């Protein structure tokens, strides 16, 4: 019964059904997602064959330490997101079911071409979901670039097929390691294809238009869940399958570093809430990509987990603020949290975790990034990572201070009137934000579980016995 294929098949079947059973679309959606998020806890870790043909002949789904925890996180958060926006999802119920199937497929599949199919399913679902924000021209940009990207990815894997004769990831990995040629161009095309989805810098022209106006629903979906899943896919392909040459690693790492720094620079100058987060997501993607390319998979996994959870809350709250207040210009949001402290505290914890302050989960992410980078005797990358983190801290703190404090510069607190506007946000959103914030807080005090899991996940891609991580329990292990 605990077949991961059901994570894809059930939502798809319900999606097909939902167009004739229009009246119970939303219950079907909730049912399907509920089923998925229950099922994920019963899945065993192994390879699942589809159609009865063993890989590399048929397609298989792989469940291992690397993707199992992401499957859990993504499915549960997907359900949570739909519950938080239940009033808005009605017209999109069918598409959401397909999107859920697409994301699960991206995480599960063990076949490169099947991955392409799921990239298309997921991104087309995203295009349609983004029409909720009525920015057709911006989404059109995404369509063109997204389609171009997946075409490049397809070209890459076809070249790989021509050169190695297989499409299965595990098989391909073995063949590449013993192969006689380095398929540079194929790697690069695959990189370009995935880079568009993971928002690396020269490839990400679509991001701003799409995420800047994202609602409390599309924001967390595209900015957190999609971004996280695409990074997981990137890690699977570049960490587990392809075997890059030294020069290639250097040049692609440079792209990652540029993304990281430029993302933080752009976020620093952003004046709108969602613009800040989208630029910060770009930077975080750059960071994860750098770590994957450097072979430090376990910390990359940590970065992705932290990023999915924190961006989820941040986009959710920002989207709600924009919906309630009508804009998200930071300068006009002075003291917005004063009448909604619980939400504000969740938002604050999340953003403090993002900049890696101690007591929050992000701190252990940062420390472990540095440990891993210094262990691979890197000097420049950690310095640049720290510079990026410095810029990030500055703008996040500036933002938090603005959103908690009223009054102009130099005004005394006792003379300031309390803000008149009130932030009316539903109970579900508050509850979700607080629970996720508390999770970040708890795993900030006791991070061992998550860190050990990340090490296991990283070892799936490439076994490295000398990994040292810093945990609360045992310090340096």
């Amino acid at each position: 019964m605990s077949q991961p294929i059901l994570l894809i098949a059930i939502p798809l079947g319900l999606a097909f059904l939902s167009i004739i059973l229009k009246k119970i679309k939303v219950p079907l959606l909730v049912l399907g997602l509920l089923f998925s998020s229950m099922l994920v806890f019963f899945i065993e870790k192994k390879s699942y064959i589809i159609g009865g043909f063993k890989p590399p002949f048929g397609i298989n789904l792989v469940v291992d330490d690397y993707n199992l925890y992401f499957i859990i996180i993504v499915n549960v958060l997907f359900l949570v997101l739909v519950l938080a926006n239940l009033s808005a999802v009605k017209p999109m119920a069918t598409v959401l079911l397909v999107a859920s199937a697409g994301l699960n497929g991206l995480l599960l599949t063990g076949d490169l071409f099947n991955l392409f199919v799921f990239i298309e399913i997921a991104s087309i679902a995203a295009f349609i979901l983004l029409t909720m924000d009525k920015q057709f021209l911006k989404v059109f940009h995404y369509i063109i670039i997204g389609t171009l990207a997946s075409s490049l990815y397809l070209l890459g894997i076809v070249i790989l097929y021509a050169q190695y004769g297989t499409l299965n990831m595990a098989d391909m990995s073995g063949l590449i390691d013993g192969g006689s040629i380095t398929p540079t161009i194929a790697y690069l095309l695959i990189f370009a294809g995935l880079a568009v989805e993971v928002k690396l810098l020269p490839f990400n022209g679509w991001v701003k238009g799409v995420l800047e106006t994202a609602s409390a629903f599309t924001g967390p979906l595209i900015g957190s869940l999609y971004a996280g899943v695409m990074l997981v896919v990137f890690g699977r392909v570049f960490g587990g399958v392809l075997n890059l040459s030294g020069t290639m690693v250097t040049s692609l790492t440079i792209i990652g570093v540029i993304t990281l720094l430029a993302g933080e620079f752009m976020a620093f100058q952003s004046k709108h809430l969602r613009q800040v987060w989208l630029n910060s997501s770009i930077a975080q993607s750059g960071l994860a990509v750098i770590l994957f390319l450097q072979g430090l998979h376990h910390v990359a996994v940590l970065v992705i987990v932290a990023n999915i959870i924190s961006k989820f809350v941040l986009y959710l709250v920002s989207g709600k603020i924009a919906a309630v207040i009508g804009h998200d210009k930071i300068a006009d949001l002075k003291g917005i949290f004063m009448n909604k402290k619980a939400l504000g505290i969740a938002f604050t914890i999340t953003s403090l975790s993002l900049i890696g302050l101690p007591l929050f989960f992000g701190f252990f992410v940062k420390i472990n990034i540095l440990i891993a980078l210094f262990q691979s005797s890197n000097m420049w990358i950690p310095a640049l990572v720290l510079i990026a983190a410095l810029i990030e801290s500055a703008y996040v703190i500036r933002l938090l201070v603005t959103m908690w404090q009223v009054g102009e510069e130099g005004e005394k607190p006792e003379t300031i009137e309390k803000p008149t506007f009130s932030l009316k946000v539903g109970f579900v959103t508050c509850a979700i934000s607080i629970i996720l914030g508390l999770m970040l807080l708890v795993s900030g005090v006791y991070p061992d579980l998550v860190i050990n899991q990340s090490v296991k996940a990283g070892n799936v891609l490439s076994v490295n016995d000398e990994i040292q991580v810093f945990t609360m329990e045992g310090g340096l292990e």
Partner: protein
Amino acid sequence: MKRIVSILLVVVLGYFVYTSLYVDGFDMAVSDNRQTSISDAYITKSVTSENESVTYMESTDLENGSANIVTAIVTDYRSFDTLGEVTVLFLASIGVSMVLAGFTKKYQFKMKTNRILKTGARLVVGLALVLGVYMFTHGHLSPGGGFPGGSIIGASILMMYLSEENFRARMASFKWMESLAGTVYVLIGIIGLFVATYFLENFLPTGTVGALVSAGIIPIVYILIGLKVGSEVSGIIDQFLTEEVAS
């Protein structure tokens, strides 16, 4: 100026791609440990069984009974891809109808149709529908299959739209067809999971290679795909041939 730069860039890109792909002449550089058994196994249908060769109208009860090897791959060996593919088309049709949500009135062409066109179109549409159905029922034997068959059905609907001014396909029934075909496809997959062992497994007897009733679930799946693609393409065509109602 911009064009020249673009041409230059594209040419440079082409040069780089060419030089890194092709070592000498037009032969792509190929790794010496290239896997060749995959396609061979598809051709001899020996993925799960030790099958030496397949002969038309003779070999029976193979792991896969389709004479058309491409169909064998599309609907059996890599059937999961095809499910995804159908989903993409499904999404596209939903997407089109959602994006063009306000477009409900039928588009009126400037040119009037005439009797010759109408009669001819009806004739061709009838033939085309038959051809389409033939194609997806014989997908496992001959070139074609569900996708071309479905597209032909869609094309015939387009022809009706173009020739008949007042023609409006009954989209509700297409929706039912689309939905049911998709659901049954998934159901077949799940039945495979529970009746046999694997999702989308071919759980019916495969029969003789080359016979019309053979290859287990492949013809069923291809008929479903044909119906689904046909209704989706028709739906997309219907949606495109509309105008926005001024509200």
